[in-house]
């Protein structure tokens, strides 16, 4: 290692100033702005009052959107776990020559436009979509089934977006397991299932928890799937922020809601980091 102390700072300069001026200060601004007053006309009035937060918690309307956001995020985490663990385990144990291609394929949706992937669920779940078309044609249904614009269709979009994150996290931690541990368990008389339950599963938990955190955080801030695939009753907190800021131009209230969302995420990430460590997450993204 070299010891010219100014050099690393010179190298870091551009990146740090970008993040400082374009992220740290702007986020600080949200916090400041959330205490301001909205003027009926003209510029917002600088102030220090909790009216915007009081408005948020005044009745059940806004908190229910927050609770729905948390619930949908937990549902997404759970569904991604159920759908993601087995494929990750498949990659880990499979001896197929196509393993690297299969892994590449699961990464592929990352490269494909988010809005196209989300919007396409309308092609599948809509009244004239793939599933209804098929069911009507073979005569199971006489009228199309309404599968769109509810929590289920929002979850479809969310899973399609987040599943690769979960699979990769679990796979990375499975790959890190020393295979001789499994052989030891097997040689001492464990069945395949016991070896999985006693050795593989516990050792893969760091990946499971890292994937779960990432999926939770990304779902909680999500805007597009509820907007495109959800109905009026499926609004999540990001949709609320967008509506207040861009729709009604209520910047102070929009800022307060942003602070509520940010606080929720900071609490969750901080707790996670405190007990489990955050490093695992970035490991899988490489």
């Amino acid at each position, binding site marked *: 290692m070299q010891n010219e102390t100014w050099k690393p700072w010179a190298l*870091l300069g551009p990146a740090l100033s970008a993040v400082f001026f374009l*992220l740290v200060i702007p986020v600080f*601004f949200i916090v400041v702005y959330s205490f301001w007053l909205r003027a009926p006309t003209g510029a917002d009035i600088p102030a220090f009052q909790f009216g915007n937060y009081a408005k948020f918690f005044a009745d059940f309307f806004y908190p229910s959107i927050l609770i729905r956001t948390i619930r949908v995020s937990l549902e997404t985490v759970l569904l991604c776990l159920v759908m*993601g663990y087995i494929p990750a385990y498949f990659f880990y144990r499979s001896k197929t020559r196509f393993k690297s291609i299969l892994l590449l394929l699961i990464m592929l949706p990352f490269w494909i436009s988010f809005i196209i992937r989300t*919007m396409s*669920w309308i092609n599948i779940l809509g009244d004239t979509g*793939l599933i209804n078309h098929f069911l009507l044609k073979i005569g199971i249904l006489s009228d199309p089934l309404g599968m769109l614009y509810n929590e289920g269709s929002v979850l479809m979009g969310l899973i399609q977006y987040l599943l690769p994150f979960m699979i990769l996290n679990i796979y990375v931690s499975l790959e890190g397991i020393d295979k001789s541990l499994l052989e030891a368990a097997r040689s001492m008389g464990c069945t395949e299932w016991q070896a999985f339950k006693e050795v593989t599963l516990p050792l893969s938990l760091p990946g499971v928890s890292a994937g779960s955190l990432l999926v939770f955080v990304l779902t909680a801030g999500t805007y597009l799937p509820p907007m495109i695939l959800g109905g009026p009753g499926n609004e999540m907190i990001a949709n609320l922020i967008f509506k207040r800021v861009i729709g009604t131009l209520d910047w102070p209230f929009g800022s307060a809601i942003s602070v509520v969302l940010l606080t929720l995420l900071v609490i969750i990430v901080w707790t996670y980091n405190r007990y489990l460590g955050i490093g695992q997450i970035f490991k899988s993204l490489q």
Partner: protein
Amino acid sequence: MLKISGWSLIRAYTILVYVFMFAPIAVVIVLSFNPEQFGCFPMKGFSLRWFAKLAQNEPILHAFKNSLILGSLTAVISTAIGILASMAFVRYEFPGKNTLNTLLLSPIMIPEVILGVALLLFIRWLQQPKSFLLLLIGHVVLTLPYVLLIVQARLVGIKIEYEEAAKSLGANAFQTFKEITLPLLTPAILAGMLFSFTISFDDITATLFWATAQNQTVPVKIFGMLRNSISPEINALGTVMIILTIATPLLAGYLSRKLARGS
């Protein structure tokens, strides 16, 4: 016997997950060739009608141009900044290193809605109008963490001895970087640029906050079109974007292999 059937269940399950992941993509591509007026099933033949219509849609072509320029500039700036910062993180020791690294990676974990509001609020306070520049700096912040992850991972793998050997032979720091580090980093630089281009090209949520009517990107345009209903034109546009975003990394992979062989 039990083991075989267990494994085949796992395999079947994995195949179903792939079907789930690729169904929406496949359906967009299939439907984009449907000549029907409405973008839905059943298929009534095969036609390139909607692609032809797309090629004459001025606003979309304009958005495409915007997206390409924005994505390319984002890729160049973000990767340049990212390489410098990665050099600092991998090659030097300094106080607060881990904290700063986490800070620079944090945009991955912060919801785009918040990034969107924050930057917009800041710009408003500075009394600047929304502009192309706002989109550009915003996209640099969005993509920088990914560049850092990719370049740092690669840089860790380049032995510092190569650089030290060059220095002991009389090369200065800049020459060492140019002659030794940079060529070895080329695959990571290409990957970083590609990644940031794609993220910028596809970004929708934060971009919805920052874009103006003049600076619409393709996803913002699609978002606007979706308000009416899904038209076959959107499916055609989706197909173009899918092909583009898949072809670019393949092409880059091919080019980087060719470059590696050439040098």
